[in-house]
C-alpha cells in the first residue's frame, strides 16, 4: 500500500479507527454474502467490498451531527457513519425492528441519529438532496458538513450536473465523494464517460476537484480531511474522486463476464483491508493483539445483529398505511 508520507498524517488512534470501520464493513459484507449464497436470506444485495477505505477515510473526520447521503451500494457508508448494526441488519431483512421498520429496505437505509439521512436507489438523485442539507446548515449558521456519495456512472446523469453547479454557486458545505469503481452496472467507465478522471468535471463548476487512490486509507483521509475542513470553514464544496474497485460486480448474482478476469484478480489480490492491516502492523501503528481484538468484537457484533434481525418479527400489516402522510389520508 502506497500512502503519502505527509507530516500531518492521521494519528495512531485514527488509523486504528479507520481499520475498525473497514473491518466492520468487510465482515458485515462477508456475512451477507455467505448468508445469501447459502440461501439463509434472500434480498437484492450490492456488495461494497473493495470500497471500504473510502468510507472509513471520510467518516473519521465527521461528527455525529454531520450528514451523509448515499446510494443502494451504501452499506460501507452506513456502517462508517455509525448506523447501528442490529437495526441495519433488521432493515436489510425487512423486519419491524429495522432502521425504517422494514419499509425502506437496503436501498433506503435512514438513521438520522447517526446522521445517515438519505439512501437512494435512483442514480445521482442524492446529489441535489445533499445540497439541501448543506443549505440548511448554511442557513442555520451551524458548521455541519454533508458528505454525499455516488458512483462514477452517476457523474453522467443530469442531477450530478445541476447539483454540483448549485453547490458551487451557493458555496454549500458539501463534499461530493465519487466512489469510482470503474463500472456502472455492466459498463466500464471508459465506454460511458467523456473524461478520464471524474475530478476533471469539478472545473466545470469552478469547484476544486481531486482524484485520490480510494484504496489508500491515508490518502483518502487527507483528501477528505481537506475537503471537510473547507466545507466546515464555509469555503464551499469539493469533488473527491476516489478510485477503487467493486470486488463482486454490480449485485449478488452478477456473472461479471464484462469484467476482465485479470483485472479483477489483481484488484482482489491488492485487497485494501488486509493491506492496511499489514501496513499498520509493519509500521507499528497497532499490534496484532489489538487488531485481533477489534476483529473479534466485530464478529460478535455481527453475530448478535444477525440473530437480532432473524428473530425480529415482520412489520405488522397496519404499517402498510402509515407514514404515507403524517396522518392516514385517503
Amino acid at each position: 500500500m502506497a500512502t503519502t508520507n505527509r507530516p500531518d498524517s492521521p494519528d495512531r488512534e485514527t488509523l486504528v479507527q479507520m481499520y475498525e470501520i473497514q473491518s466492520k464493513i468487510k465482515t458485515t459484507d462477508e456475512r451477507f454474502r455467505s448468508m445469501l449464497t447459502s440461501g439463509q436470506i434472500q434480498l437484492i444485495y450490492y456488495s461494497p467490498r473493495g470500497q471500504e477505505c473510502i468510507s472509513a477515510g471520510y467518516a473519521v473526520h465527521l461528527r455525529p451531527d454531520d450528514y451523509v447521503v448515499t446510494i443502494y451500494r451504501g452499506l460501507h457508508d452506513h456502517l462508517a457513519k455509525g448506523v447501528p448494526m442490529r437495526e441495519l441488519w433488521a432493515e436489510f431483512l425487512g423486519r419491524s425492528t429495522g432502521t425504517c421498520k422494514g419499509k425502506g429496505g437496503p436501498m433506503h437505509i435512514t438513521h438520522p441519529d447517526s446522521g445517515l439521512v438519505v439512501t437512494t436507489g435512483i442514480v445521482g438523485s442524492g446529489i441535489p438532496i445533499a445540497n439541501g442539507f448543506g443549505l440548511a446548515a448554511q442557513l442555520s449558521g451551524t458548521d455541519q458538513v454533508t458528505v454525499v456519495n455516488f458512483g462514477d456512472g452517476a457523474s453522467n446523469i443530469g442531477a450530478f450536473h445541476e447539483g454540483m453547479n448549485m453547490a458551487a454557486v451557493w458555496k454549500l458545505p458539501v463534499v461530493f465523494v465519487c466512489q469510482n469503481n470503474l463500472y456502472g452496472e455492466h459498463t466500464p467507465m471508459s465506454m460511458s464517460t467523456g473524461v478520464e478522471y471524474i475530478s476533471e468535471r469539478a472545473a466545470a463548476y469552478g469547484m476544486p476537484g481531486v482524484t485520490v487512490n480510494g484504496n489508500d486509507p491515508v490518502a483518502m483521509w487527507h483528501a477528505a480531511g481537506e475537503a471537510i475542513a473547507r466545507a466546515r470553514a464555509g469555503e464551499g464544496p469539493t469533488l473527491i474522486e476516489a478510485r477503487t474497485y467493486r470486488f463482486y460486480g454490480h449485485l449478488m448474482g452478477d456473472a461479471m463476464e464484462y469484467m476482465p478476469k485479470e483485472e479483477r484478480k489483481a484488484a482482489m489480490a491488492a485487497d485494501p483491508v488486509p493491506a492496511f492491516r499489514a501496513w499498520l502492523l509493519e509500521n507499528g501503528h497497532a499490534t496484532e493483539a489489538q487488531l485481533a481484538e477489534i476483529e473479534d468484537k466485530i464478529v460478535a457484533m455481527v453475530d448478535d445483529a444477525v440473530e437480532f434481525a432473524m428473530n425480529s418479527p415482520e412489520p405488522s400489516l397496519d404499517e402498510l398505511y402509515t407514514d404515507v402522510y403524517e396522518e392516514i389520508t385517503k
Partner: protein
Amino acid sequence: MTTTEPRIIPMGLALNEAMDIAMGLDEKVFLLGEDIAEPSGGVYKITKGLSTKYGTHRVRKTPISEAAIIGAAVGAAIAGYKPVAEIMIMDFIAVCLDQITNHAAKIRYMSGGQTTVPMVIRTSAGAGRQFGAQHSEMLEAWAVHTPGLKVVVPSNPADAKGLLISSIFDPDPVLFVEPMLMYWDPQYACDVPVGDNRIPLGKANIVREGKDVTVISYGKQVHDAVKAADILAGEGVSVEVIDLRTLVPLDEATVLASVSKTKRAVVVHEAVTRCGFGAELSSRIHEELFGTLAAPVARVGGQNTPVPYAKNLETAFVPQVADIVAAIKSLNK
C-alpha cells in the same frame, strides 16, 4: 383600512401575502426558484418584495436546474426547514419529477417515518395565453396518482392565501397548483382577509347550493361552473357547485353528501380528460352511490390532445361554460 371592509385583491397578491406571513411567522420558511428575488420578484411577480424584506438567503434565485431546486428543498425539509420551491410552469415538473415523486413523496414512507419532507412546490398552470403545448398543461393527475404528495388547486385569492399558508405548515409535501390566468386578472380578485387566515387542507367549499345537479370542480373552472349554474338557474335548473380546493386529501364526504342529494354529478377540470382527476372522482361517486344516481357522472375536461397554439384551437381545447351547461343538460334528459 379596517379588516371589516372588503379588501379586493388578485390571487398574485394573495399568494405573496401568504408567503410573507409564513416567513414572518417561522424563520424556517424560505423560498427558492428561478428569478424569484428582486428586482423582478419572479416572472409573474408573485414573490415581489420578499427578497428585500427577508433577504436573498431566504428568497433564493436559482440556476435553471429544476431537479437541483426540488432536491435542495427535499434535503432542507428533512433537515428541519420548510422550503417553498417554485417551478415556473407546470409542464416543467417533467424535468424534475424524480425528485418530486421518487423522493419528496416517498421519503417519509421509506424511512419508516423518521425523516419527513414538509415542503411546498408552487407552480403556475393552465392554458389560455397561447403559450403552446409545453407551457399550458394541468398535470395534477400525475401527483394524485403519487401517494405521499398532497395536491392543492385554489380557485380564488382568499383560498389561495389560506391554503398556501396551510400548505407551508403542513407536515407533508404539497404540490400547489396556481391557475396562471388568475394571478392578476381583476375579474378573479376577491375579498381576502388580512392576516393568518388558514384554510385547512381536505375541506371542500360549497360555492353555491342547489338541488338538481352537483358540479364538482377546482381551480379556474369553478368560475365557469358558477357561470353555468347562473345560466341554468334561468332555465329552472338548480345547480350545486363544489370547489374541491384540495384533491389530496379529498373531501369525499362533502361530495357524496351533495350528490346523494342531487343524484346527478358533473366533474369539471381543464386537464386532459383521459386518466384525469375526473376519472378518479367519477369512479368513486359511482362506487359509493350506485343505484341512487339519476344519471351517470359526466366528465367535462380538456380534450385528449396536446394544447394547441392557435387561439381558436386553444379555446376549443379548454372546457367552456357552454360545455358545462351541455353536460348538465345531458343528465337531465
